[in-house]
């Protein structure tokens, strides 16, 4: 029987149906848990990018704001839905006043699309906090863009220095080796062995900040 023409085909078919069935049941039962975690992580990152400004305006410490998630998120953070603006936008509101904005941005890395959250000042010119939400870079090399020292280089940086330009409004930054110390404000340390990924992060920020500034400054919020 095992040597017949049909047996291997039928056998393989039964195996595929059996294992695909098990995986489908397992995925269905875990789906909501996985989604809840993804939403939770995303909202925590939004709060993280806005926490410093909320802290300044409310007097509450940054650690306290982060520890009080999800209450602090519901209290201070609001998602905005803007016509013709193709990014997710969140605003931090303290005592009725907007203190900062947070944008979901995307860019091309070496191996796939990177997704990040960046908070800006209310004039959209300065990056407050920047965090990578999702990336597909090489573990141990490009994936190190999620390390704190690399991300913190972008904190509180003026990105829009030429507000009157109709095309490119962003300030010029350049990378130096990871082991060197920056000598000017325009120098940032790149990740060793991940030149393309480091450059991609800067390119993404430059492109997205340009888009955000040019689109948001004319909107009535």
């Amino acid at each position, binding site marked *: 029987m*095992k*040597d017949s023409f049909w*047996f*291997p085909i039928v*056998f*393989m078919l039964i*195996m*595929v149906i059996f*294992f695909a069935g*098990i*995986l489908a049941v*397992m*995925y269905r039962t*875990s789906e909501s*848990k*996985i989604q809840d*975690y993804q939403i939770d*992580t995303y909202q925590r990152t939004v709060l993280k990018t806005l926490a410093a400004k909320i802290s300044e305006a409310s007097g509450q410490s940054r650690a306290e704001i982060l520890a009080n998630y999800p209450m602090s998120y519901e209290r201070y953070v609001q998602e905005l839905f803007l016509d013709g603006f193709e990014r997710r936008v969140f605003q931090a509101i303290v005592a009725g006043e907007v203190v900062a904005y947070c944008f979901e941005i995307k860019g091309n890395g070496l191996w796939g699309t990177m997704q990040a959250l960046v908070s800006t000042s209310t004039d959209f010119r300065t990056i407050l906090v920047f965090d990578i939400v999702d990336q597909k870079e090489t*573990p*141990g090399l490009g*994936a190190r863009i999620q390390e704190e020292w690399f991300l913190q280089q972008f904190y509180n940086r003026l990105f829009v220095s030429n507000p009157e330009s109709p095309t490119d409004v962003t300030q010029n930054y350049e990378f130096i080796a990871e082991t060197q110390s920056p000598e000017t404000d325009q120098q940032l340390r790149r990740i060793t062995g991940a030149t393309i990924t480091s450059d991609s992060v800067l390119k993404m920020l430059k492109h997205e900040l340009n888009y955000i500034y040019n689109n948001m400054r004319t909107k009535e919020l």
Partner: protein
Amino acid sequence: MTKKEIFLTAAFKENSIWRQILGICSALAVTNLMLNSLIMGLGVIFTLAMANLTISLIRNWTPRSIRMMVQTLIIASYVIIVDIFLKANLPEISKQLGPYVGLIITNCILMGRAEAFASQNPPLDSFVDGIGTGLGYALVLLLISFVRELFGFGSIFGFTVLGDWWINWNIMVMAPSAFFILALLIWIINTYYYKAKV
């Protein structure tokens, strides 16, 4: 062979990493932290044991011409089960392990044991072989990560054991350090166990 002999042979005497030099990629990649190594080790133990058991259970009905396809399907299914379980229940660790859980499928040890042992031996023996091989693999991962985490971060399983005076060795956090440690481990075991026996 008795069950005990099968287990000891798979875990130590014919250890897949230090004796057969299999599964090296993941051994080098995930050993920067002990917790990552432990979870990876548990994932491989589960996948190996269950895949061996399943392959052995159906060995008498599996047509020879498609056996590799069947083995790959079974191994891949168990790896996806581990991946979904981690994503749903241990998401932080799943995130840290990143693509490596999925890459258990490509771990040579799994196909090696399926072809060399499970497809020719009874289910219980194959299950014990899977546990033993997985444990041997996890043991090596933990040994390497112990050295890397201790010197690279001054901690063990995330708990700081070397005080503020300790200066972390950056090389230990980077992948090349795993090469040196694994090479040293193989050298020590070869010298003091296999060669001494000869």
